[in-house]
């Protein structure tokens, strides 16, 4: 069946990432003597152009038919090296990777131990490579269109880009209106532009776009399929020209999904020391936003003499399980403090802070403006609030003065942070998305794939991935739309070639594979009484292969002999 193996083995230094811990030369020398190995080399960066050229040249000159690269995780560069192998005339599925960075050099200190482990991982990869068979790349067509979950700014912007590119976009919004949290804002930093000047226009563009369909009071009930061909079941009301339709269930066929479910505002009841809900003088930045919009800053009918802002409420707090910075509260406080100074020039405004983090374009300048407007910044994380007459007392240490103060205030504004929404769990389960430790959705790679997820065809936009301000949200939404457009514009997506296949000679037609498959890929051939796999439906999970009593059904690239060959050499 398979040709006699002629294997090329390439050990990557990854700069010093691998070479500092693993003796790459020793591993190379060792690999040279492994069965089937024709050549073994090591190189600084195998993923670089010259690194890949080594594979291609060797493959052609030496007639290689298998390639093994020992470098990083296959989740990182398997596609790179498969392509290089193919260019060298080796079937890309006869390529195997040994992960000696993530699973070796980065997690072990001892050079001898790491080198020994690297050797073992290379032996296993070589053993598997020798048994790999050539496979064909496969592609399937893509259903044009995208579902966008969430109708806040992120969701609307992403949907508009998809729609503008000429594809249908479906917005699924849980509430009864578009706009999300931004609709509750008055003016935005750092330009103090009223939200009313741009948000209604954005909503109007979305609602009137011929390619966009909006569902309100709606939720995603079910997601089936895979990148290129998702079937999304939505329960909710469709918005049409004549208004909101009757609630119902809608089945949407799309090629990509954009998750833009946003965040939850931190509930300061969870910080009992601030007396939120107990004292009318203590409010959140969101409530302040409303008051500023209405121009009503009075407390008990009186103009406040002293307004205090408290930062980092619900953020940077390990005890709450929110260790992260919410990234917007410093700017929101600077904005609101400034607006109070503008509206009430005689009112004292104090911002208590741990650190001032007004990063971003025009952020520091905005902080400068806030101080110049007369806002007093004092360093100290407020510890407690209690009542004194009609006013409240803010108990805080001014850490520069090294003195604990009891500051009286008429209005205290808690700069509340962002948290992952409670329904993040449901969405994560529906779409099989992993979450990071902070509860937000986890991107596929923190730097290289910031809007992708572990699920092909599902992308992240806005605060569902982590706290961000409006410019960052929009930038990410447009990035998510651009990424979602790649399969839509290509019209096809690659699908796995590592599918299950039945040996009809061995198959007894018991139908256990049919039972066990969650995707309906195998079916019994009525004429021959044996199982046959529909490769388009097969996802390659291998449930059938384990179940089959006669081992007639196997998954290509993960055949028992290929696995057992690895076990064999690993336990030696």
């Amino acid at each position, binding site marked *: 069946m398979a040709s006699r193996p002629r294997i090329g083995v390439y050990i990557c230094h990854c700069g010093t990432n691998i070479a500092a811990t693993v003796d790459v030369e020793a591993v190379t020398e060792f690999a040279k003597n492994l069965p089937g190995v024709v050549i073994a080399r090591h190189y600084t960066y195998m993923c670089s152009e010259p690194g890949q050229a080594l594979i291609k040249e060797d493959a052609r000159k030496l007639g290689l038919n298998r390639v093994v690269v020992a470098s990083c995780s296959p989740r990182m560069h398997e596609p790179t090296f498969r392509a290089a192998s193919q260019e060298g005339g080796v079937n890309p599925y006869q390529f195997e990777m040994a992960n000696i960075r993530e699973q070796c050099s980065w997690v072990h200190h001892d050079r001898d131990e790491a080198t020994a482990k690297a050797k073992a991982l290379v032996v296993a990869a070589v053993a598997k490579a020798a048994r790999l068979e050539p496979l064909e790349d496969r592609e399937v067509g893509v259903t044009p269109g995208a579902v966008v979950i969430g109708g806040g700014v992120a969701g609307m912007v992403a949907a508009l880009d998809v729609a503008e590119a000429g594809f249908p976009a479906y917005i699924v919004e849980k509430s009864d209106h578009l706009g999300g949290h931004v609709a509750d804002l008055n003016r935005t930093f750092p330009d103090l532009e009223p939200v009313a000047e741009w948000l209604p226009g954005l909503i109007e563009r979305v609602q009137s776009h011929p390619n966009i369909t909006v569902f309100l009071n709606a939720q995603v009930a079910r997601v089936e399929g895979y990148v290129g061909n998702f079937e999304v079941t939505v329960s909710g009301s469709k918005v049409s020209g004549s208004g909101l339709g009757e609630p119902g269930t809608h089945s949407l066929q799309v090629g990509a999904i954009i998750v833009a479910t946003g965040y939850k505002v931190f509930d300061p009841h969870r910080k009992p*020391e601030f007396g939120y809900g107990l004292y009318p003088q203590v409010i959140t930045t969101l409530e302040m936003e409303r008051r500023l919009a209405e121009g009503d800053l009075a407390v008990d009918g009186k103009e406040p003499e002293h307004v205090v802002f408290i930062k980092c409420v619900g953020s940077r707090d390990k005890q709450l399980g929110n260790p992260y910075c919410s990234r917007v509260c410093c700017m929101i406080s600077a904005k609101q403090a400034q607006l109070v100074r503008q509206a009430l020039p005689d009112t004292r405004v104090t911002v208590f802070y741990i650190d001032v983090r007004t990063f971003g374009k025009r952020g520091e300048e905005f902080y400068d403006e806030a101080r110049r407007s007369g806002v007093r910044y004092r360093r100290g*994380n407020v510890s407690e609030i*209690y009542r004194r007459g009609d006013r409240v007392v803010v108990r805080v*240490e*001014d850490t520069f003065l*090294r003195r*604990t103060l009891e500051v009286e205030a008429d209005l205290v504004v808690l700069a509340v942070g962002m948290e992952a929404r409670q329904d993040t769990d449901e969405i994560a389960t529906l779409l099989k998305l992993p979450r990071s430790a902070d509860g937000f959705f986890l991107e596929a790679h923190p730097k290289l794939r910031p809007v992708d997820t572990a699920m092909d065809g599902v992308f992240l936009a806005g605060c569902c991935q982590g706290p961000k301000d409006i410019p960052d949200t929009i930038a990410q939404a447009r990035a998510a739309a651009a990424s979602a457009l790649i399969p839509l514009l290509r019209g096809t997506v690659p699908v796995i070639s590592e599918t299950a296949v039945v040996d009809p000679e061995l198959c007894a037609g018991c139908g256990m594979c049919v039972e066990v498959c969650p995707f309906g890929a195998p079916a019994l051939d009525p004429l021959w009484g044996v199982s046959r796999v529909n490769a388009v439906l097969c996802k390659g999970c291998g449930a059938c292969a384990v179940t089959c009593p006669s081992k007639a059904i196997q998954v290509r690239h993960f055949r028992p002999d290929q696995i057992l060959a690895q076990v064999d050499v690993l336990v030696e």
Partner: protein
Amino acid sequence: MQADIQELAKELGLGLDLLGCIQCGKCTGGCPVSITTALNVRFLVYEALVDALPDLGGMEELWDCTCCFTCVERCPKDVRPAELIISLRSQLVESGKIPGTIGDALMSIFRQGNPLGFAREDRAAWAEGLGIKSAREGCEVLWFVGCVPSYDMRSQAVAKAAAKVFQAAGVDFGILGTEETCCGNEVRRVGEMGLFEMLVEEGKPLLESVGAPTMVTTSPHCFNTFKHEYNLEGMEVLHYTQFLARLIEEGKLTFSGKVERVVTYHDPCFLGKQNHVFDEPRAVLQAIPGVKFVEMDRIRERSLCCEGGGGRMWFEGTNTEERLAFQRVHEAAETGAEVLAVACPFCMSMLEDAVKVQGLEDRLKVMDILELVAEAM
């Protein structure tokens, strides 16, 4: 040095995490004595972090800390600042540089099993003729009376009330009598780790040997250390307010009388802030017929410390003029309450003193919850 202190804290079993500190000031901002004394725990952490701690011997304010643990409860980075103070105190204890009155208390605990200087054999004298059995005979509930209720005249009344209440509710309880020895909660907090270890080593097998499934303590301080620092096996530790709330809920504790008074309640730090027992004491008070329950402003997580914990029962503090207990009794009086209810012998002592000094005796009476319950039986 910074590493030394972190290492020392670890050895002492303290969860101090100096390197986690961002110097935000939440600890000092909430520290009850940070306004009235020179103690600044945030700055101490900083000095420890940058190896700039001054000579501890001259730092009398280290003994001002009441170990209320507000700083620990609120620290956003889990630094546990109070445990730095305990670590530093332990260094002073090692070198013998401790206030004389604290030294006397520790010596008394070592010799007599109580900090008050009384003889061990008199520990159960208060219980004579009350028909309280020895826990040695076997019992469902081991009642740990505690040092202050055993010897202090005012608190003995609370112990007697407890006995009356438990008996009326038909509780099968016993006490250890003269075998009972100081729990060591304050011993640990003043940094006398050696003595504390000894108390645990001797106390743990003694308490476990009773074989009672439940232990009830009079004091939140005993409750705290038994619950968290003794690792008692097969024994549930309850403060008496939790136990009474349970008896009331199960219908085992019923009232025949009434207490027609306006009552407010002061949360003890070792029960409230540190163990989040806020609701049970209030439930008990509100179950007493006739009681009109009112709240002060600073309650529960925001309760004001009475300054009796962390060794402060034996050390006046560096500021004897401005006492938090003085402020507290005024807060209680302002609610219109006639009774300031407490659930801790230390709070009882500090607040009752304050009522006298502040001349509020004709307006406000400090009573333990147990006394109010007993009055309504």
